[in-house]
């Protein structure tokens, strides 16, 4: 049910020059030159094919049709949602396709922030969930990855295997026993139900993060660690002063997906954050939205949906490359 990135360490190149717009242009130029020189960097359709009208016109038409299709399927639903968030409920119900038949109204948005929905509280809760999950995931993945991939104790192989094994387990197996663990956690003691810990701590058990970080650490040059050791750095200083600063690219990947996943999660927070007498203090947006669906007018509901989508969309547009560089095996298999 989670959504995980697939990034190979060679995509996150170390010591890479910052890619400024100027450098981007230079890179593009040099690429073009290579193309002209060697005829490399091509796909199924060769440049000779492209010159034949019998290929060019159908192919160009097909690409145009595809672009229109992608706009309709990918962009229009979001634009429709934003439009309807700013339209009177009756207008949306009677003329759903019309664009602002009676002008823009901010009533729906005001109601979303009003006493009945209180979207701002649930928004803050979601941020709080995401922030805590991020901290737990970063701590577990970096310390664990460092120990397993750089310190390499003898028993490390067994632990790595045990972590990897959980990758192949369908999430469903964990649902009930994990819920019981939240009610009576080992070691910790006391029920975590209706506390943020109930979503924060289990999110750290992500084999995916550990594998991602381990593969990145494996690609770091060993000589640096040996040099640091010769200079008298112990394992803690090596971790804090050398390995962590070098890991910024991979930590960025883990961070973006930690936030996105926190926004997407539904079933688990639904189970462990039932809210009790004051759901506004603990529930994230994903749990709140279905519970207001039956009792809220369409306009304010759509305004709430729009507000809930803002952060993920902005994150995606800003960090496009992180998402699109082979991002999202989990996205493909989400149930």
């Amino acid at each position, binding site marked *: *049910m989670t*959504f995980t990135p697939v990034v190979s360490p060679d995509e996150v190149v170390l010591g890479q020059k910052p890619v400024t717009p100027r450098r981007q242009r230079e890179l593009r130029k040099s690429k073009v030159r290579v193309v002209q020189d060697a005829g*490399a*960097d091509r796909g*199924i*359709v*060769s440049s000779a094919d492209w010159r034949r009208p019998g290929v060019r016109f159908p192919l160009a038409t097909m*690409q145009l049709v*595809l*672009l229109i299709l*992608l706009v309709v*399927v*990918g962009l229009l*639903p979001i634009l*429709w949602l934003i439009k309807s968030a700013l339209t009177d409920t009756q207008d949306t*119900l009677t003329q*759903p*396709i019309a664009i602002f038949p009676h002008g823009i109204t901010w009533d729906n948005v005001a109601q979303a922030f009003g006493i009945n929905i209180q979207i701002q509280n649930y928004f803050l809760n979601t941020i709080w969930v995401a922030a805590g999950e991020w901290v737990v995931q970063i*701590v*577990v993945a970096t*310390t*664990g990855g460092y*120990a*397993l991939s750089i310190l390499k104790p003898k028993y490390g192989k067994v632990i790595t295997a*045990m972590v990897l094994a*959980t990758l192949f*387990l*369908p999430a469903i*197996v964990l*649902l*009930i*026993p994990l819920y*019981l*663990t939240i009610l009576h956690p080992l*070691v*910790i003691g006391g029920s975590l139900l209706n506390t943020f810990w109930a979503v924060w*701590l*289990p999110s750290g*058990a992500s*084999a995916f993060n550990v594998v991602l970080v381990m593969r990145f650490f494996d690609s770091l040059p060993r000589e640096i660690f040996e040099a640091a050791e010769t200079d008298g750095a112990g*394992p803690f200083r090596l*971790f804090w002063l050398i390995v962590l600063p070098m890991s910024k690219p991979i930590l960025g990947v883990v961070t973006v997906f930690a936030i996105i996943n926190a926004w997407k999660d*539904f*079933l688990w927070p639904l*189970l462990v954050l039932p809210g009790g007498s004051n759901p506004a203090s603990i529930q994230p*947006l994903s749990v709140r*939205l*279905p519970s207001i669906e039956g009792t809220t007018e369409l306009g304010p509901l759509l305004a709430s949906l729009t507000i809930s*989508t803002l952060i*993920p*969309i902005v994150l*995606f547009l800003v960090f496009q490359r992180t*998402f*699109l560089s*082979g991002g*999202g095996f989990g*996205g*493909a*298999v989400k*149930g």
Partner: protein
Amino acid sequence: MTWVRRGGLANLLFLLPLLLIFGIFSWWPIIDSFVISLQHTNFVVTTWANPFWSNFTFVFNDPTFAIAVRNTAYFAGLALVLGYPVPLVLAVIMSEVKRAKGLFSVLAYLPVVIPPVVSVLLWKSSFYDASATGVFNTILGWFHIPPQPWIQDPLTAMPSLVLEATWAAAGGTIIIYLAALTNVAPELYDAAEVDGAGIWKKIWHVTLPQLRGILLITFILQIIGTAQVFLEPYLFTKGGPVQATETVLLLVYQYAFQSSDGGSNLGAATALSLMLAACLAILSAIYFRATRGWSQN
């Protein structure tokens, strides 16, 4: 003390967060699930099941179980028919785009970043509105097609769920295929052309064989994912109308948290989820064994 000096203590300290978190929230619950499936538990009282397989027989004797299995298979099958070929075709066309390739990918991926709950509620409240002025029904009206009941009719409910789920997930698969397509060595196409291959032959003899490995993996991953479908049936229809969208995971949830007798049957819920996991494991094992020959180049 030599153990400490050699860094044994440091190793353990660095491993501690991972061991604690995985131990408490992953490894222990996995073991515990086998124990729970042999117990009668309702959060308060726990007793051993007698006979020990009685949770499993309870599930098998529940008439809803067969319905849930059939519906889950139906959902997974429909999702494969619709969701498996479409991303591949789109990715192949997209990979040949010369200009603004990034725009294509961004548009294709947008539905994936919308939180699933938001997507479902948007489709449920507006797009699938069964009145003549619902969004989809209005558009159908332009083509003189009568309004459809969408999620309100047992016949159309499941296909409607699959349509939304495919829309929400296709972008992720497209991006995976695009990455795989850029890894196809251009020399292979050059060589195919020397042998006189046209575009279709190049797709059939170069592109598809080169994608074979990734195609095999996305196929089984999609089945594993769709077999655990919960969000769509839970939020769209609560399993209705007349159990038309009751799925295995929904049944697990109902056993555990909304049992008809008011209590909760955690034993049965765990037994059912273990059976599903076992089925998926066996299916994957058979699948990888059967396709082992194809996946190597």
